[in-house]
């Protein structure tokens, strides 16, 4: 019996590696505010308690993270110079912040001093030193309430990242672009980038969060977005990391009364990708739009889990995710909508559509509605299909080649998501990579 207790106390070697890395990171990092240290401590304990998720857990049923769990990723150090060619701005931004392997890289960033008065795009580590009171009310406040091993792991290694602050009543018209470059070191390294966006009351901004990388890097990203009352934020997450990369990301939104938030999740890169979007509509009259486009080829696995939590009355949410899957790629879509007892007059609409370009591609799509109010409108729909043979023949009969016809139909499928991308250079860029990355068809 005593022996058994002894065994239970033992930590699996997989977790032990991260615990050791955690202790190592504590020794290396500059002193942090006490509340940060406490948040990290509770996060590592949470991670140790949870361990890596298995497919026995409902939210991970179709996505095995074994390829991540079985590897020993060292904490990446990051060389900014190496990332320079990858970290060019895309959106003609007003300011461009760059993070390399989770560390803010001022030398690669540009125009941070050109922002309107009060608007800040700064490194998180620097912010914790120079203005901790600015970030303390927000940082890790959303993410810590979640029971995700990966989010906990990110918080446990919290050190640096990017903070975007839009003061109340300030309107930033041009996009703010943040590039996260993940460069794999040695036989594979992990980074835990962190993004914090705080949009004050009645402010407006567009933020492009772009993930690029090299090699079999493991990016474990967390973004927290605080949307003030009547604020308007357009958030774009464009992920085009290397084909060998692992990408796990959580985005947490807290929206206040009358806010308008739209998210555009655009996934192209990575071998194993998981995006969690968790939006809490915590005030009346919030409008939340979640757009998603994911393109898989080869043996990519792309998993999108979204949760929209209607906590207060009179909020609307509109969600459209579309996937284009070729070769042996796989995708998972799980869209959860919670309507709390208080949240009368909720109007929620969710759609997931997938286009399978090969017999071996597949998707598991699932809506999950938890409705506790009685005067609400909630609709959901999923459609999975192949390219329309009749349409293919019609286009070819007019002289368009197979590849051209296919591209035309795929673009048409993705069209409504692309058309909602309001940053023009980004939309043009996306049309280009959609064509370039078009999965093969037998």
């Amino acid at each position, binding site marked *: 019996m005593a022996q058994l207790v002894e065994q239970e106390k033992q930590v699996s070697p997989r977790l032990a590696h991260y615990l050791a890395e955690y202790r190592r990171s504590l020794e290396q990092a500059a002193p942090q505010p006490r509340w940060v240290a406490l948040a990290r401590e509770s996060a590592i304990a949470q991670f140790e308690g949870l361990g890596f998720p298995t497919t026995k857990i409902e939210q991970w049923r179709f996505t095995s993270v074994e390829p991540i769990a079985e590897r020993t990723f060292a904490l990446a150090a990051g060389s900014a110079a190496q990332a320079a060619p990858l970290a060019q701005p895309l959106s003609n931004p007003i300011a461009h912040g760059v993070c390399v392997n989770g560390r803010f890289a001022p030398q690669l960033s540009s125009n941070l001093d050109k922002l309107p008065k009060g608007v800040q795009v700064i490194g998180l580590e620097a912010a914790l030193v120079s203005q901790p009171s600015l970030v303390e009310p927000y940082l890790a406040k959303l993410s810590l309430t979640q029971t995700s091993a990966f989010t906990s792991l990110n918080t446990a290694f919290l050190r640096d990242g990017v903070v975007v602050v839009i003061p109340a009543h300030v309107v930033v018209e041009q996009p703010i672009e943040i590039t996260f470059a993940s460069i794999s070191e040695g036989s594979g390294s992990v980074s835990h980038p962190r993004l914090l966006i705080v949009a004050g009351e009645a402010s407006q901004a567009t933020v492009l969060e772009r993930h690029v990388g090299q090699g079999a890097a493991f990016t474990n990203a967390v973004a927290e977005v605080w949307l003030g009352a009547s604020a308007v934020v357009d958030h774009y997450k464009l992920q085009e990391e290397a084909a060998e990369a692992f990408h796990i990301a959580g985005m947490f939104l807290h929206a206040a009364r009358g806010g308008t938030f739209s998210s555009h999740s655009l996934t192209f890169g990575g071998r194993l990708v998981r995006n969690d979007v968790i939006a809490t509509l915590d005030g009346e009259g919030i409008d939340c739009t979640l757009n998603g486009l994911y393109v898989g080829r080869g043996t990519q696995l792309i998993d999108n889990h979204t949760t929209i939590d209607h906590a207060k009355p009179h909020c609307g949410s509109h969600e459209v995710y579309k996937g284009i899957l070729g070769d042996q790629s796989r995708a998972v879509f799980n869209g959860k909508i919670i309507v709390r007892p208080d949240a009368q007059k909720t109007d929620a609409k969710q759609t997931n559509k997938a286009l399978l370009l090969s017999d071996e591609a597949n998707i598991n799509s699932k809506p999950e509605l938890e409705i506790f109010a009685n005067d609400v409108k909630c609709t959901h729909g999923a459609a999975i299909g192949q390219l329309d043979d009749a349409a293919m*023949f*019609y286009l070819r*009969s007019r*002289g*368009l080649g197979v590849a*051209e016809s296919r591209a*035309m*139909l795929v673009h*048409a499928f993705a*069209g409504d998501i692309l058309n909602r991308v309001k940053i023009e250079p980004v939309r043009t860029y996306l049309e280009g990579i959609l064509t370039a990355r078009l999965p093969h068809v037998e």
Partner: protein
Amino acid sequence: MLEIKNLQVRGGTKDILRGINLTVNKGEVHAIMGPNGSGKSTLARALAGHPEIEVTGGTVTYNGKDLLELSPEDRAREGVFMAFQYPVEIPGVNNAYFLKAAINAQRKYRGLPELDAMEFMALVKEKAKILHLDPSLMSRPVNEGFSGGEKKRNEIFQMAVLEPKLAVLDETDSGLDIDALKAVAEGVNEMRSPERAIVVITHYQRLLNYIEPDVVHVLQDGRIVRSGGKDLALHLEEKGYGWIEAEPQLM
């Protein structure tokens, strides 16, 4: 221009075309008539290269080339056009964008310079005027939400823009009211030229009041059972298809 010899096509376990022989010279308009299920649409689809058509015998020579060897897109690029009986709706693909891509794919194949946006729009305006087509159709998705008549007119419009050498119209008249039928016929007549051959496939003689064919063929049970001048169509209208069966043609 087009020489079909002993063409045989199977659909499932059934022989649909059982030895079609047909020669169409440039400048000619041929009408192919026949009852439902006689194989009319199968013939059109075989000429356009529909992937579900299984040719089990015979040859089709088009301008000296083996047409059956060509992919559907290469047939189009060589100048073959089929107006669909049921034009396909393609949501999300803009009509003008599609047609510009199509004409430029064909021009590229023929070694001609591609049309730029200005040149293309000028061409479209000219052709739309001839066909009395509402130009706003161009900015809508291909056939999506079009009425039956609009779809058929859009087919003829595409034909006018693409200017094929051989046009095959598969029951373009079906389901059209008299105004739409006249408009379609007018469009086809505009296209008549000494350099172009047109094959009109129809169930009814009505269309041939407006498009005067040089030759009329009757297709029955997968074979052309009778050929003649335009009067043949009138006889058919009067006496019905049963008349052919009752009076075998003297060869």
